[in-house]
Every structure is written in C-alpha cells, then in structure tokens.
C-alpha cells in the first residue's frame, strides 16, 4: 500500500504532485480515507455539482451560525469557541484548523424542524372555504460541520416526527434533502458532556460523511451511499494505521477531557422520586422562563400554530412556529393553566427531558451538547441541578423547605 508522502504542514506541493500521479487511485475504497485540508474545496465542489446548497458554520455576531457557504475560506478557519454557563466567546488563533469551533447556538434542528413553517392557506369561497397545503419545497442541503451530539439530536427528532403513523410531511420533505457531513470532536468545551450520554464525541451513525481533522488532513468515514457517491471523482488517500490511531486518540482524549457529566444511572425513576424537592424552588428563583434552553436544545420539539387572517376576512394563513414549555401559554388547557409558575415549568422540562422522555420514546431527551448551559442567560446548568436533586433523593421528604437562592 502506498502511503502519502507528507505528514506535516507546508508540504502541499508534494501532496498535489502525488495526487496528480495517483488520480482516482484510491477512490471509494472501504473506509478511512484521507482528504488533505488543502483539497477540501474539491468536496464542496462535488456537493455543488450534485445540486446541494452547502451550509457550514460561519462567524457571525460573536458566535457561529449556519450559513450558505461556497468556499473553504467561508468556514471559521483558525477560530475557537470557549463556552461556560451563560458565556460564549470566540477566539481567533494562529492555527489553520478548519473545524476549531465546536458549535454555536444552532444544532441540526432548524434544517428539518423549521422555526417557522407555513402549513396552510385557507380561502373563503362562494360556498365555503378552500384549503391549500403549503408543501415545503424540497431542497438538497449539505451541512458540513455537524457534531456527534447534533446527529444524536437529529435521530431523536426523526423518532418524533417520522415514526409510524405520525409522519410529519413538512419535516419529512426537509429531512429527505439533508446531507450531513459530521466532524468528530477532538476538543471538548467546558459545557460538553456527550461522553456521559454516550452520544459522542465520535459520530457513530446518521451521517453521510464524517471528518476527523488531524493536522492538515481530514480522515473521512463514509456513512451512506449518498456519501460514497459524493466522493466519487475526488482523489483520496488511504489512511495509515498510525494516522487513524492519531485521530482515534484525539477523539478519546476529547471524551476524557470533559469536565461535566450527567449521572444517568438511576433515571428515570430517581427524578420522579424528587418531584417535591426544595431544589425546584431554588432553580425557579434563578430561571427566567425565557425559553432559550429549549430553543437551542437539539431535541426540543414543541411548536405552536399561528393563524394570520387578512383584514378583508377572505383568507387566513396557518403557520407552525417553535414554541417552548417555558411560556405561560404552553401550560394552558381549557379554563386552566396547569403550569402557572416557573418552578412548574422548569420541573416539567427537566423531568421530561431526562426521565419521562425515556418512557415516552425509549431514549433520553438529552444528548449532552451543553447548549442549554451556555445559552441560558443566567447560566443554569442542568447537570448541576440533577446532581443536587439526586444527591439527596433519599431525603425527598423535606418538600417545601425553602432553600437559599444564590
């Protein structure tokens, strides 16, 4: 087997010569190919040629957001993110790392479960009314830079929106056109706890292609037939055992470096047992019920329906919008609000996310991305709340006792 002649940065000329010599030589082999970082544009071009709109992380307003990209330079090269409770900062480094930013506020959620989806247009007619379904326009979108936690979140959304009889046609159309290029994490944020949720930092499934950035090379795993087809025609190199090992070591180190973890051992029951724990009052004193945690959560799926009639009363438009269990209205049933206080809402959210979600869907509703910790304006950390709640779960009889707020 021929191995690429270069292992260090700055030897792209050799790479290029090598590629020219060995054009197509290693195309579409089994697994673990190398794409030099310098040739990432070829991957983007191949996606464009197949009709995909390419979306990647781009630096925007002090974070990264998903935006349409055309060239590698649109990606946040050399940037790194630092996240802690209620704080997100980007740092520009001298590195030429392409995927140094782990993630921004958005997961893969908005690509399939749109924040605002037009559902119906209803028109008054002579003898009643006519309804027009606003089918989402099929679009091929390739997202580059999704993380293992994002894939886990997408899998949960798929379970909710596509399973059996409850197949949501709007979600399905968007999901169908989605091509995901994952990036395995080699650096953990202080807010990450995917290792304890067993969702990352390596992307295990649900991607079309997965990349591991090792110095100036990208190790490529193929996850689907569509992924394999995109690679056709791109010169790739086989990865040495050494390089594969280097990638795996980085991912393992990322897992080990995670400082947060979520103790899932006694869930779901342990959380049901602390329904009257005084900690709920404590967290309610801090929680703003602002909905940010649910908005950035890759798995939260609540939505509301909005009708917008026109002044002439001849037509109305019906849309679906992201909603949250933290709003006042979310708890309304006929004649009564069943979750009037912030305590009710935080308790319901955390208990659903970590416990009753398991009963409902057979999996946890948390993927360990840590976004709810970072993007909470007052830095409420669900791993901390859970550990306090469960640490004294055998003392749940102290219900109602006030606890000092922070």
């Amino acid at each position, binding site marked *: 087997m021929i191995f690429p002649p270069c292992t260090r940065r700055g030897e792209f000329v050799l790479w290029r010569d090598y590629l020219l010599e060995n054009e197509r030589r290693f195309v579409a082999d089994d697994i673990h190919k190398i794409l030099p970082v310098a040739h990432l544009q070829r991957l983007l071009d191949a996606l464009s040629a197949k009709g995909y709109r390419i979306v990647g992380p781009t630096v925007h307003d002090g974070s990264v957001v998903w935006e349409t990209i055309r060239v590698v330079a649109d990606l946040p090269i050399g940037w790194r993110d630092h996240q802690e409770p209620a704080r997100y900062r980007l740092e520009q480094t001298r590195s030429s790392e392409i995927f140094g930013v782990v993630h921004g506020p958005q997961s893969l959620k908005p690509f399939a479960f749109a*924040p605002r989806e037009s559902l119906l247009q209803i028109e008054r007619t002579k003898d009643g009314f006519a309804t027009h379904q606003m089918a989402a326009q099929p679009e091929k979108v390739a997202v580059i830079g999704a993380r293992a936690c994002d894939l886990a979140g997408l899998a949960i959304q798929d379970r909710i929106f596509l399973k059996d009889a409850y197949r949501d046609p709007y979600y399905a159309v968007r999901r169908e056109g989605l091509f995901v290029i994952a990036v395995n994490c080699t650096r953990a944020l202080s807010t990450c706890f995917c290792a304890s949720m067993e969702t990352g930092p390596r992307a295990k499934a649900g991607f079309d292609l997965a990349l591991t950035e090792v110095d100036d090379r990208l190790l490529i795993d193929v996850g689907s037939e569509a992924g394999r087809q995109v690679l056709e025609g791109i010169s790739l190199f086989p990865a040495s055992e050494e390089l594969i090992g280097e990638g795996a070591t980085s991912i393992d180190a990322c897992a080990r470096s995670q400082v947060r973890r979520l103790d899932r051992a006694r869930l779901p029951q342990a959380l049901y047992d602390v329904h009257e724990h005084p900690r709920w009052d404590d967290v309610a004193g801090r929680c703003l019920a602002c909905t*940010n945690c649910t908005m950035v959560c890759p798995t939260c799926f609540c939505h509301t329906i909005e009708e917008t009639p026109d002044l002439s*009363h001849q037509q109305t438009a019906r849309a679906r919008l992201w909603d949250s269990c933290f709003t006042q209205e979310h708890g309304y049933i006929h004649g009564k609000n069943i979750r009037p206080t912030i305590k009710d809402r935080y308790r319901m959210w955390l208990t659903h996310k970590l416990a009753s979600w398991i009963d409902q869907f057979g999996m946890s509703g948390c993927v360990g991305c840590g976004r709810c910790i*970072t993007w909470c*304006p*007052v830095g409420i950390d669900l791993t901390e709340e859970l550990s306090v709640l469960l640490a004294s779960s055998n003392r749940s009889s102290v219900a109602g006792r006030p606890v000092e707020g922070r």
Partner: protein
Amino acid sequence: MFNPDERQRPRLAVVKFASCDGCQLSILNLEEDLLALGRTLDIAYFPEASSDMRPGPYDIALVEGSITTAEDAHRILALRQQTKVLITIGACATAGGIQALRNWADVESFKRAVYPSPEYIQSLSTSTPISEHVHVDFELWGCPIDKGQLLRVITDLVVGVQPRLPADSVCLECKRRGNVCVLVAKGLPCLGPVTRTGCGAICPGMGRDCYGCFGPSEGARKGPGLPPNTTSLAGHFHSDLQLIPIEVMRRFRGINGAVSPFRAESDIWEKKP
C-alpha cells in the same frame, strides 16, 4: 364585537395624548394595508391623517400617549364615554412612556430649567398610563407599536373574536430568527429575557441589547400570569456582567420604567449602595 352583517362600518378614532406621534405614524406606515383599513373601518377622527374630524361616538378608539395634564385627564374620560372598545397604542398610553421618568423627579425644577416663563406651563407632576384613568379594553405595547400587531387586533375586533397577542419573551423570537444571543456572546445587558415579544427581535438582530420597549413579558399588569423574573436577570447584570447598581436601575427604568415589575426592580437597585 361588531355585527359583521351591519352595513355601517365600525367608526374609528385615533386620539393623541402626551406622546411623540410615532405610533400614529405606524398606522400611516401600513401602506397598502391602510387602504384595506379605510375600506373596513370608517376613520371618523384621525387629526394626524385628516382634517375631517367627526365627533363620536366611536366603535374603536386607538389612544396614543400618557396623561400628563389635568385637561387630558378630563379628555380621556370624555373619550371613554363615547367609545365601545378603547385600545391603547404604545408605551406612553400603556405604561406612561419615557416621560414617566418625571414620576421620580421634581417636575417644577424641569419647568424652570426649560422654559423662560414656567408659570405658563400647566402640567401634572406625573405621567400615567391610560389604564390608571379609564377602563382599557386592550393594550398594544411597543415604542412604537408593531403595525402587524395593530392590524391583527383590528382584524380580530372586526371579525368578532377576542384579540390575543403573544406575551412571550423576546428570546423566543430571537432564536426562531437565528439571532446570536448578545447577552451570552457579547456580555450585553439585554432585557430580552423579561421583555414582551412583538418587535420581531429587531435590536438583538442588529447586534445590540434589547432595552425593553415592549414592556414586561407575560404576567404584566393585565396579563394572565406571573411577572417575569426580573430579580434574577438584574442580579446577573450586577454580579456577572459587572453593572453597578445605578446602571442596573437605568436598564429597567426606561421607556416602560413606570410599569411593574420594571418599576419595582429599578426601585430596588436605586436603593442599593
């Protein structure tokens, strides 16, 4: 609310009190919807738009501005008596407006500082929202109001359903729009988490912090729920974003500073050393 079969179009009045006219301009800025509004309603009194000013009674009155003079305090009583549905438009009418900052100050000293002949100025010592004087049927928040919300409320009234607008936080709309949180990513003292939605999250969308021009989110005075947790947010501004107490006070004492819980929060931080 109105009989849709009635030949007569509902009569509309747009009445101004102490205000900058910006909310009335939002009506004039409805563009093509203004024509539809004219077809749907009989615009009987709208001095900013027309010198054809017909007397009441009115089916709908849109009231802009706060009460700052004894004369206006009488005028709003008279309008209420002639009006079926009275709707306040904007922060001044709904919360007292920026001019309610006088409620914490000495108005006489303002008069002497501004006017050469302060004895000609007849003004109350406070600026108060319309609801402190007469019954208000519906409140539109914002400085200025959102014209989409205005159209929606009028449409609901004309069709005959109870108007209902969302009272969620600005954050919900920010995230739907894909804005990056300015509080978390830039450390700006954004009031979005406790401020009512309706503006379209314009300020955070432009990279600046919300200053609460739509008033407190759900649980405001007339809302069905509890007040937003301004205590927690104010504490975060102080302890984590390093705002000194007077700065925290000023965040909450702005366009809607006269309405609780913003008022109560600003009072608390004014007293802190």
